[in-house]
């Protein structure tokens, strides 16, 4: 995959940088990494990080240290859809353990793994601020809340259909 923003992505990148004072373009690093991750296959390769560094005229190490600090950046390839299931206290008391076990069994993968067809990755995450709607998981930009086994079945079917249509 080419590591260069297309015109639309570059316009967005410039909009992000323009929000900060002149000479403070490094401030756009977090949003720029989100943009890069969304643009280049859902994860940040070294090549991608170096590209972002060159765009912001900062050292590559400045990008690596940020990319490794924040949990939302994937540093290795992930499936087309990443299930990030919350396991913190409020979700735990609402039954997140059962949901995690059910997803593992249904997708036949362990934590951190991706299904053989490259469709789904299962990750555990810490509190996502949906405690009143627990148990929950995040899939891309979307929160899936009040999870039950039936609901998980529906979500898997939904994404499989979405992938088939694309």
């Amino acid at each position, binding site marked *: 995959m080419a590591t260069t923003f297309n015109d639309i992505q570059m316009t967005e990148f410039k909009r992000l940088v323009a929000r900060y004072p002149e000479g403070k373009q490094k401030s756009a690093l977090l949003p720029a990494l989100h943009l890069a991750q969304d643009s280049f296959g859902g994860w940040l390769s070294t090549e991608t990080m170096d590209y972002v560094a060159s765009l912001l005229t900062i050292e590559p190490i400045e990008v690596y240290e940020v990319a490794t600090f*924040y949990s939302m950046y994937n540093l290795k390839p992930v499936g087309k859809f990443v299930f990030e299931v919350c396991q*913190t206290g409020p979700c735990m008391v609402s039954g997140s353990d059962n949901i995690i076990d059910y997803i593992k069994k249904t997708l036949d993968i362990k934590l951190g793994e991706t299904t053989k067809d490259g469709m789904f990755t299962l990750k555990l995450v810490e*509190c996502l601020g949906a*405690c009143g709607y*627990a148990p929950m998981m995040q899939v891309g930009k979307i929160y899936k809340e009040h999870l039950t086994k039936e609901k998980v079945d529906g979500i898997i079917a939904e994404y499989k259909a979405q992938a088939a249509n694309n």
Partner: protein
Amino acid sequence: MGVKLLLDKANVPGIRTYEVYRREGGYRSVEKALKEMTTDAIVEEVKKSGLRGRGGAGFPTGMKWSFIAKPEGVPRHLVCNADESEPGTFKDRYLMEFLPHLLIEGLIVSSFALGSNDTYIYIRGEYAWITDILEQAIDEAKANGWLGKNILGTGFDCNIHVQRGAGAYICGEETALIESLEGNRGNPRIKPPFPAIQGVWMRPTVVNNVETLAAVVPIINMGGEEYAKIGVGKSTGTKLISACGNINKPGVYEIDMTITVEEFIYSDEYCGGIKDGKKLKACIPGGSSVPILPANLLLTTAKGEPRYMNNESLSDGGFATGSMLGSGGFIVLDEDQCIVKNTYTLARFYRHESCGQCSPCREGTGWMEKILQKIETGKGEMSDIDLLWDIQRKIEGNTICPLGDAAAWPVAAAIRHFRDEFEWHVNNPELSQTSNFGLQHYADPIHVPA
């Protein structure tokens, strides 16, 4: 039905759009503040209101504003802390998702008062769809002349920018947030210098929570003195509480801080009682870092007086028998919940979120997680409980930022109030894997729901 100042219009259809929000009286506080008030007068109203920071620390907002340095020729910035990450807390999300213009309105007035021409909302990265909602609200406000250059012909310029974080609890700490806003790892800074003197890009900066900034709107509209009449003592105005756990009606509630904890849990207007007719065992009343309380100490203080939903009452008795209002993340645990397991998940959370700068926090949170996991899985020894106590004491107060304290307090309170449940786990390594310690003596027998 208590008074509502923030969520009173939350159920109006279409309130998320500019047209409906404006028709319902939105942006009046901007007109009043920018046209009729001086910046000092606005700060004075906020001081009079008694408003205290709604993020968890409860620092008086007006006082925080009055600290901002004003060196000649150096831009100042207001930063809205929307990094809501404290387990149990989801009130800011609700406010931004359903009433985005209320936050934008509060931000314009506050930016004017502080002299911030470029104001930033730092929102947690996972709230990606709310970022879109906020950016749309900002565009609408700008199109209608509330943002941009020369607002209302007053000569005041203001733009609001939204920056997404990328998954780090620590960035809710204001100096870590500033580091992150600058494109760095979220390592908290040593204070002083305080952000009011040297904040983002070393410029004077005020960082306030979402709910705090939204509360500026009713304060300007009704006046600080009127606002201060609501509530009790130093707990003025209203507070958003996000209730979750084993209750019938989880959700976000606006309360006026004069109701009792008992009413909040059992009244149908709020939590609607414990789910499935079970009994209340314990509660973490102000976000995961505040001390957990067993039911008897939650509903009444050690002196036997009813406990109220405000700062003073919840902290009555100190950490020995009380807790804190904190962020308003109200986590309820029923009789089936295991305190050891709950504490373990929270310890794991803090280990995951420690930035790693200070050894007591970086090493201590890892140790606490491992020991709690050991006890939880039936491999614990009696000496582990004392070791846990020892470790949390060595973290508390020994770190640059409050994350160390936040990690220590839940462990300390769990051992303080539920030591026998920890001992039961150690003494019953097999039984504890298949059954629960249960309620034992923790529920107040008087407060069994009918």
